[in-house]
């Protein structure tokens, strides 16, 4: 970031947008375009400056047909790639002698409901020995799966569980695709844009019969005096207070 910012002048301000769904810097589907565009335009130029990145060059060279788009923002290169050969690309990035992206710093997703392919899975890679960064993005349609990278970077395991939990994106080949932050009974995926900010928890938890092994304790009005275990809780508003 800071150390490679001042090495190359701005040559290509906005990268050409490809036909199939661009990254967030190139289009703004839900922001107020009129208000923000005018004052932000002079500021945006230094931010979108192209930075030299060995990772991007090698990626383009080796997987030319897989790279859909490269954008730059605030000194970071963001490459949107196809998901078909992603497992191979991940191993390449980790093992190539000039890249050594051995540290998956962050893995997350974003939901853009108005786009053709509404989900983005974002990987922030870092190389501990060579100290360079790369952002990889994969675009997914509703219900589409993407290969899990938990065998390449074991740290992806929990990150992918979290993305599944909060966005409902499944990862093919993940050893344990279960919810991690929300309870197992939760219905819906909270970080989707169509998921309401406020609401009644009763609408989002699917109650079912409780087995003794699970010991799920449910506190509700009917049971307040006995403080007992409620065996059957239906989704009929019991416990909504």
């Amino acid at each position, binding site marked *: 970031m800071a150390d490679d910012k001042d090495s190359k002048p701005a040559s290509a301000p906005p990268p050409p947008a490809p036909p199939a769904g661009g990254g*967030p810097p190139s289009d703004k589907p839900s*922001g107020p375009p009129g208000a*923000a565009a005018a004052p932000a335009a002079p500021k945006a130029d230094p931010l979108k400056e192209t930075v030299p990145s060995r990772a991007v060059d090698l990626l383009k060279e080796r997987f030319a047909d897989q790279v859909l788009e490269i954008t730059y923002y605030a000194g970071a290169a963001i490459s949107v790639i196809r998901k078909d050969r992603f497992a191979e690309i991940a191993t390449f990035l980790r093992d190539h002698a000039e890249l050594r992206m051995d540290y998956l710093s962050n893995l997350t997703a974003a939901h853009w409901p108005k786009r053709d392919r509404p989900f983005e899975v974002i990987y922030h890679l870092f190389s501990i020995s060579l100290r360079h960064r790369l952002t990889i993005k994969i675009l997914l349609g509703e219900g589409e799966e993407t290969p899990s990278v938990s065998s390449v970077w074991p740290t992806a395991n929990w990150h992918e569980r979290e993305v599944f939990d909060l966005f409902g994106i499944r990862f093919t080949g993940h050893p344990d695709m279960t919810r991690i932050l929300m309870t197992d009974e939760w219905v819906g995926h909270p970080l989707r844009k169509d998921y309401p*900010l406020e609401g009644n928890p009763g609408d989002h938890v699917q109650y079912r019969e409780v087995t003794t092994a699970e010991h799920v304790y449910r506190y509700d009005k009917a049971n307040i005096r006995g403080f007992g275990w409620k065996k059957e809780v239906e989704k009929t508003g019991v416990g909504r207070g």
Partner: protein
Amino acid sequence: MFRTEDMEINMGPQHPSTHGVLRLKLQLDGEQIKDMRPVIGYLHRGVEKLSEHRTYSMIEPLTDRLDYVAAISENLGYCGAVERLMGLQVPPRAQHIRVVLAELQRIASHLLWLGTHALDLGAMTVFFYTFREREIILDLFEAFCGARLTYNSMRIGGLLEDVPRGWFDRVRHFLKIFPGRMKEYEDLLTVNRIFLGRTKGVAVLSAADAIAYGVSGPPLRASGVNYDVRKALPYSSYEQFEFDVPLGSHGDTYDRYLVRMEEMRQACRIIRQALDRMPEGEVKAKVPKYIKPPAGEVYHVVESPRGEQGFYIVSTGGEMPYRVRFRAPSFVNLQALPVMCRGGLVADVVAAIGSIDIVLGDCDR
């Protein structure tokens, strides 16, 4: 015929030494741990979802509540991320004060860790000593911003106000007395035979595993991997300061202790330099009243006391972020806990949890 079978036992979520609401499902063969599954999410408050419905300046108080024992590091990381998103330059004086605050916070956080970690291992005295010094730092923070735990101390573009008169002298006074106090802790622990027995060779994490599991902060450096965000990707003028990154060699609980102790000394060194070179001038850049970063995205990392704290912010040009993700070091480091504990004893789990220094508010967000 006799037979043996594995026992599954729950540790937490209300266990005093899990440092919050963490539940561990242990699979035991006698006293030995065969496998472990951490269960988290008890403190999930949906901060990322909330952030999508708040303006940029309204999110900063939410970041206080993530890692509530190192709130200043969160403030610093969040403000830094938004500033990068906007291409904003922070005045040098504000950057230096931020460094002083962040390093004081590092000492306060490590003191809390040291006290509770030693307490978990049966050394009660250290707790009283470390909290005595932590109190001095909290008083400094209170004098600066009025709060003792959730500071909301910074603003996008700098600081709300300059430090109060005489504050730097109080910091200098703290720096003067602190090395002597550190000697007191070390006298109690560093060569204490019981402490050595509980920590040496316990919960070992190899360098390769640490990198593969994305571990960061003192646990990573105790395994001998030289990665400190302050050195690797400097932010907030850290490149101007001289300090060493302490590294361990065995990756065990004792090395993590040594690394954190040395980090406290290095933090004092950084604060001293920052005070000596404190520039004059403004503490806040010219920031529009309504913060609307241009459409774009940024992933900004800072070195919090727990490790690499990342902030991923996507803007569409509106006054609220489109997507915010907090990369929590506690969340990622906790994932390596089963790797550390497999084959060890139940009693060592307590030492291992203490040694990675998790904060569940940060982990569950």
